[in-house]
């Protein structure tokens, strides 16, 4: 070995040393990439077997994410029985969950805000679920307390200390304090602001928002530009808003449009009779129980395993070529109508005549962000540095690129901490071109994914955290959600798919351009209404 080789080697050793973890010490890591293999099979148009069976049905729902499940639930609720729902490559979509050592935990979205008055469809579903008690139209309904997030709900690690809540408070200068106050005053004002058309400026579902250009114009610039223009420049405020955008949309203030950034704050005004405003509904396994409830109401007889490969419209109906990879067999569905409840980047490969609807792939398809959802199974709870700021449900590190972690056992009604728990760490690969992020995810080793997933936990607990980790399950969601980037409100192709009322209907959060439960459910609701009328 010459001197130069030696230098190279030692630099390399120094780099790997930075991770603070020796390869043979790490916990066992499982990496799941739901839907990826099937999705890429579809993209690459790989040959599949010839269909061996057929089924005829009045309505076929293709996809079992929130939009598909919600459409099915609404049909079943209305007494409509002749339909089926195709599970798709990622059953449950972003509501999926897992179980580690008997502890249920999320592998997708983990909470639901208190639904606003306009999200009556979500309130009705929660009432059917028994989570909302009494009148779903009440301004302040009563919610099942075991599902309202338990105290302490959120904390932020800033300057070496934990503080209550996620808005930075400690060690701020007067300017930052003043800007934070002014920002929240501004969104409080926007919450009641109405446009020239008399509609509220920001509403969930977003189609009910005012179309006054005074507001929709905000969708043409990034949130960062809007913030700068309005004198919101203090780093603690900008970090907080960037965190919120990454948490909801998978991209930060530099990518997300100002309209979407403000919509996050100004549209959510749900109240509860038995909880403060801003409270959320959460289950130990994230939103999986909601999906399970919807699926139970739809009924097991209407559930079909498999994914749609090709949807083609005929004079008398729609033909869907399906493939069940588990059994390695293909089948054909004949339906009078179908509800395409899949992300648009998948629909673009599946729906043969998508262009006929006025949808132009290159123009209308939104970029999508990648996420890691990582479940750390722990033997015991790592010691907390400050007894006055105990472990909260959601724990976030100030300045981090990660999104912190939630505690899967937080909602358990227990006197003592359980012997084992699961911390679910979230990380959106924001601030990277989506294609670069996905390329990295596809070839990253489990150790590299673990390093990224565990950064926030290590920042809070130091390397001693490792001792508690028994097992890690990392879920990679390469196309987790559409990015509401500037221009996302005026895509003609999206407007065309929303309005489609032919044999093929569309239902997905991508029609809103933001991946939010209420939006996905809204499009499921609309598709079901088209079927029912």
């Amino acid at each position: 070995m010459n001197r130069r080789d030696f230098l190279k080697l030692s630099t390399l050793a120094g780099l790997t040393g930075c991770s603070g973890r020796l390869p043979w010490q790490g916990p066992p890591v499982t990496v799941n990439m739901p839907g990826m293999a099937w999705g890429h099979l579809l993209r690459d148009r790989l040959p599949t077997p010839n269909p061996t069976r057929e089924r005829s049905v009045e309505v076929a729902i293709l996809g079992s994410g929130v939009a598909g499940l919600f459409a099915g639930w609404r049909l079943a609720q209305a007494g409509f029985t002749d339909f089926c729902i195709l599970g798709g490559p990622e059953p449950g979509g972003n509501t999926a969950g897992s179980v580690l050592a008997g502890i249920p935990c999320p592998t997708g979205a983990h909470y639901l805000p208190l639904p606003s008055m306009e999200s009556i469809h979500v309130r009705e579903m929660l009432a059917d679920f028994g989570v909302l008690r009494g009148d779903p139209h009440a301004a302040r309904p009563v919610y099942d307390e075991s599902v309202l997030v338990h105290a302490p709900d959120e904390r932020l690690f800033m300057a070496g200390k934990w503080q209550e809540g996620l808005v930075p408070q400690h060690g701020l200068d007067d300017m930052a304090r003043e800007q934070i106050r002014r920002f929240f005053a501004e969104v409080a004002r926007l919450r009641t602001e109405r446009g020239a058309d008399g509609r509220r400026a920001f509403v969930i579902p977003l189609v009910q928002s005012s179309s006054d250009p005074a507001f929709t114009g905000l969708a043409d610039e990034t949130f960062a530009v809007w913030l700068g223009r309005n004198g919101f420049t203090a780093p603690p405020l900008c970090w907080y808003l960037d965190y919120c955008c990454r948490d909801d949309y998978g991209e930060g203030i530099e990518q997300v449009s100002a309209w979407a950034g403000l919509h996050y704050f100004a549209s959510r005004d749900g109240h509860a009779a038995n909880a403060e405003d801003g409270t959320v509904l959460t289950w130990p396994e994230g939103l999986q129980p909601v999906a399970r409830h919807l699926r139970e109401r739809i009924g097991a007889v209407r559930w079909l395993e498999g994914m749609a490969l090709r949807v083609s419209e005929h004079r008398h109906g729609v033909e869907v070529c399906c493939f069940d990879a588990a059994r390695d067999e293909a089948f054909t569905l004949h339906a009078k109508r179908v509800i395409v409840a899949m992300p648009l980047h998948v629909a673009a490969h599946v729906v043969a005549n998508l262009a006929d609807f006025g949808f132009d792939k290159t123009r209308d398809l939104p970029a999508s962000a990648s996420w890691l959802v990582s479940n750390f199974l722990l033997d015991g709870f790592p010691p907390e540095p400050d007894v006055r700021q105990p472990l909260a449900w959601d724990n976030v590190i100030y300045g981090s690129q990660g999104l912190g972690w939630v505690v899967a056992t937080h909602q358990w009604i227990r006197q003592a901490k359980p012997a084992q728990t699961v911390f679910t760490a979230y990380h959106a690969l924001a601030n990277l071109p989506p294609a670069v992020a996905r390329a990295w995810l596809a070839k990253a080793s489990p150790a590299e994914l673990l390093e990224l997933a565990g950064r926030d936990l290590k920042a809070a607990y130091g390397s001693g955290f490792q001792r508690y980790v028994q097992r890690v399950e990392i879920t990679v969601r390469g196309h987790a959600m559409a990015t509401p980037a500037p221009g996302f409100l005026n895509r003609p192709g999206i407007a065309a798919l929303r309005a489609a009322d032919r044999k093929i209907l569309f239902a997905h959060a991508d029609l809103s351009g933001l991946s939010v439960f209420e939006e996905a459910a809204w499009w499921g609701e609309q598709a079901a209404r088209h079927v029912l009328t």
Partner: protein
Amino acid sequence: MSSPSSTRRPDRLLILSVFIVASCGLAYELVAGALASYLLGDSVLQFSSIIGCYLFAMGVGSHLSKYIKDEDLLARFIDIELLVGLLGGVSATVLFVIFAWMAGPFRSVLYALVFALGVLVGMEIPLVMRILNARQAEFSELVSRVLTFDYLGALVVSLLFPIILAPHLGLARTAFLFGIANAGVALLTVRVFRSEIRHARSLALRSAIVLGLLLGGFALSERITQWSERGIFGDEIVHAETTPYQRLVVTQWHDDLRLYINGNLQFSSRDEHRYHEALVHPVLAALPGVKRVLVLGGGDGLAAREILRYPSVQEITLVDLDPAMTRLFSTSAPLTALNKGALKDPRVHVINADAGQWLETAGTAFDAIIIDLPDPNSYGLGKLYSEPFYRLVREHLSENGLVVIQSTSPYFAPHAYWCVVTTLEAAGFKTYPYHAYVPSFGEWGFVIGDRTGRYQPPTQYALPMRWLDATTTRDMFIFPADMQRVTVEPNRLNNQSLVRYFEEDWHRVIR
């Protein structure tokens, strides 16, 4: 290499002593840092300030070493070893005792000890080097060997301390162990160099005494810890145990047995009959023919003792979190005398489980449910005083069943007390709040709940009571002017108002 073989052994001993001395030096620093982090929190600050103070003191020690005359080198080295051993060995125990008995001087003593240890440890290496130098070792060889072993010793301890010593021996005994090592070096040095030291005999005696003291300290350190807790509890400790859930301490003073959990008094045998009669009989005496009773908490078996007095009771299910607690109260003679062996009674089924988890899965209904949990002083316990928890309790109560909850003091913690009542009402119970005077607790509160609204407090008791009678029972349900109901929010899991009320109320009482 030309040195005569006779001087080799002593040289090797000195090098070995460098290794041990370096280990001990780092060990005391780690013990002090860890102890300060445990007791004061903020580990980064504690460790940095202690390491800083210690290193600075070592510099002072190195400087002072030049004042030691060449002819005294060996004797002073032994003295220093003994002093380091003694000071370092007792350091953790002394600091713990001081922390337990008086809060004030803890920090001053901590830094004084760290500084003194640092000065002494700082003198060790220069002295060893001078001793070796005087023995004609080559200087470059000497520096290299001494420092090699110095750093090696530090490495060994830095690995042993977090992995083996601190978790298995504890800080007090770890400190004693290294004290013993220091004293051992002193004793060995006296033996090997006895021909070169004046008064070797008296030095050997001193070393033996210090070694003996440290060995004694090592053996007794558990006792000393208990004794220092006596400073907190006041009475003789008859049992002390740290379980995965809590610290249990039983004290005795004459005929007064007391149980403390995490330092909070749970009962005194002098007046616990008042508490347990008030907890159990207003419910059970109102349920003729009561068969199945559930006790949540109550691992001391004292409520079970009262329940077992009813001949109609066929089965008591007692769910307590901590197996150590129910084991203690079913095996320790003075304690089983107190609960009359209730936990060993064939009618009592003891289940060690979290009450929340157990209720979620239990299928049966009970005629009476007695909730005798610790006060709601944490978010975990607060969950067992919440509306969803009481709804769960309600599902396990037979149609005409009664539940009673110990619910802290309506006098000292009125917001907390009425919060429990309000929460029980929010869960759909009709409530009957009452209070009893228990001398060691003061005015204490309970609340009975039923579904029907038909509960009437008993007007007489068929069983003989030590304290309860018709008049006291009637008075218990009357709240005089200074204990009137206050309007509070129910305890919601989503804000845990009870934990906040409880802290604020008691903060006002205890200054």
